[in-house]
C-alpha cells in the first residue's frame, strides 16, 4: 500500500469522525439544524487559507531555488484551495439563505473579498494551463502565487474592518463566543479537513510527478521514432 493510499484511508476515517461530531453537536435555538453547516463552512475556509498560504510558500521557495518540487507543491495546494473555497462559498450560501434570508450580498466585504480570492486562484490555475513551457509556467505562476496571497488576510480581517452582514470570528485568541460542544465539533472538523488536505496534496503531487515522467517518456520516444518526410518517400 502506497503512502498516498494510507493517507487517503486515514482521511476517509477522519471525515467520518468529523461528520459524526457535526451531526451530534448541539444546535443554536434560532438557527436550528442549519447550525450544523458551520462544521463544513468554517473548516473549508480555514483550509482554503492554509492551502493558499502553502501556494505562496511553494512559489516563494521556487523563485529562490528553482526546484520543480516547490512548483508542484504550489500547484497542488492552489487546486485544493480553490476546491475548499468552492465548498466554503456553497455551504455559506445555503446557510445564508436559511438564516439571513439571502444567499449572497455583494455589499458584504467578507463575501465579496472571498469571491474575488476564488476567481483570482481560478485565474492562477488558468495561467498554469495556458503556459506549456514548464519553467515559464513555474515562474509566472510563482509570481502570481506570491502576490495573490495578500487576499488571505484581507478576507480574514474584512469582518473586523467593515461590519455588515457576515458575523465576526467566533473562535478568537481572546476567547470563544459559542458553546463548548459546538466549538469542539468545529475543531474536530478542522483537524479532519486538514488530514483530507494533506492526503489530497500528496495525491495531487503524485499525479504531477507521474504526468511529468509520462511526458518525458513521450519526448524520448518522439526523438527515436521520427515520421518519414514526404520528400524521402520515393515509391509513392
Amino acid at each position: 500500500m502506497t503512502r498516498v493510499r494510507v493517507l487517503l484511508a486515514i482521511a476517509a476515517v477522519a471525515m467520518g469522525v468529523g461528520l459524526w461530531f457535526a451531526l451530534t453537536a448541539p444546535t443554536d435555538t434560532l438557527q436550528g439544524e442549519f447550525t450544523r453547516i458551520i462544521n463544513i463552512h468554517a473548516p473549508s475556509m480555514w483550509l482554503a487559507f492554509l492551502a493558499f498560504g502553502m501556494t505562496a510558500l511553494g512559489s516563494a521557495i521556487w523563485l529562490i531555488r528553482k526546484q520543480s518540487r516547490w512548483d508542484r507543491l504550489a500547484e497542488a495546494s492552489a487546486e485544493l484551495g480553490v476546491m475548499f473555497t468552492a465548498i466554503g462559498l456553497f455551504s455559506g450560501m445555503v446557510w445564508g439563505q436559511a438564516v439571513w434570508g439571502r444567499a449572497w450580498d455583494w455589499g458584504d466585504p467578507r463575501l465579496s473579498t472571498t469571491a474575488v480570492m476564488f476567481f483570482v486562484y481560478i485565474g492562477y490555475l488558468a495561467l498554469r494551463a495556458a503556459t506549456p513551457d514548464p519553467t515559464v509556467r513555474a515562474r509566472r505562476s510563482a509570481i502570481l502565487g506570491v502576490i495573490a496571497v495578500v487576499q488571505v488576510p484581507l478576507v480574514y480581517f474584512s469582518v473586523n474592518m467593515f461590519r455588515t452582514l457576515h458575523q465576526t470570528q467566533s473562535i478568537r485568541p481572546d476567547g470563544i463566543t459559542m458553546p463548548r460542544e459546538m466549538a469542539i465539533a468545529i475543531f474536530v472538523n478542522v483537524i479532519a479537513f486538514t488530514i483530507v488536505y494533506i492526503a489530497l496534496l500528496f495525491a495531487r503531487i503524485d499525479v504531477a510527478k507521474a504526468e511529468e515522467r509520462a511526458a518525458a517518456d513521450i519526448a524520448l520516444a518522439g526523438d527515436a521514432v521520427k515520421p518519414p518526410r514526404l520528400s524521402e518517400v520515393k515509391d509513392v
Partner: protein
Amino acid sequence: MSDELIVVGTFLISYGVIVGYAAYLHLRRRRAGN
C-alpha cells in the same frame, strides 16, 4: 423542503466534491501510468 433535508444535502454535496476530486486524481494517476 425540510431543514434537515437541506442540511443533509449540503453535507452530501460538500463531501461529494472532496470524494469526487479524489476519484478524479485517481483516474489521472492511472492514465499517467508508471
